[in-house]
């Protein structure tokens, strides 16, 4: 028989998946049913949506476009050592 009942751990996992639009309809249904008896996970979900907005707005990529000239030199020197040994 189809199991509707899920634990809070499973419910919050579904909620996390849904933040990336990766939860299935069946999972969303289970989550909704879980909310009827669990206000904690309903609150988690509300806050999780907020967290997604926070991530979107505040997570930035550090600049990591290239290695410095010195760093490349260092690899180059190590590299030449290896080549001369071969």
């Amino acid at each position, binding site marked *: 028989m189809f199991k509707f009942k899920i634990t809070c751990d499973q419910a919050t996992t579904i909620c996390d998946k849904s933040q990336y639009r990766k939860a299935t309809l069946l999972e969303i249904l289970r989550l909704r049913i879980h909310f009827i008896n669990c206000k904690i996970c309903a609150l988690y979900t509300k806050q999780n949506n907020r967290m997604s907005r926070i991530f979107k707005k505040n997570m930035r990529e550090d600049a990591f476009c290239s290695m410095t000239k010195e760093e490349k030199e260092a690899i180059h020197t190590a*590299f030449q050592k290896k080549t001369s040994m071969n």
Partner: protein
Amino acid sequence: MRKKGKHTLHPDKWIDLYADYLYNYTMARVSKPEVSKDLVQETFFAGLKSMKSFEGKASERTWLVAILKRKIIDYYRKINSNKGRAEVRMNFYSDGDNQGDWLEERVPQTWGSDADKKMENEELGGVLNDCIEKLPEKYAMVFKMKTLRDFSTEQICKELSISSSNLWVIVHRARTQLRRCMEDNWFVK
């Protein structure tokens, strides 16, 4: 230099031609400058060592990236076995009758009526970064690939050689920990 296929190898030019490309490729996955540099260097060395097996079917760069991919998987396995395992504080009972329920002390708190206003505060970014820094490395690595860099689930699974259920467990743990950290340090203080 060997000629079988149409491509050939020129190791003396590797650093100039591919160091930046490989470094960016690595940074987008492991996020750590020092680690990325080491992995790129290891890739060049490994390439040098296995030049004989280059058949010229793929371009030089593709061939080097294939080596680098193995290095990244190895690195992920290393952080996974070292420290990535136990130190995430659990949010749910892991066994007994109430397995899967919220641990009492981990239950989400109400964030208060000023939560929306607090989300606009400029200092929030700094607090968030501190929280991400506190994540175990493997959680941070997967979480950033998924959330910041929009890698597809399939791609992450393939590149780190993990199952999709494993990936979601990691994302779930990272997110519950970040939610908790932001609650303690920002929303409910």
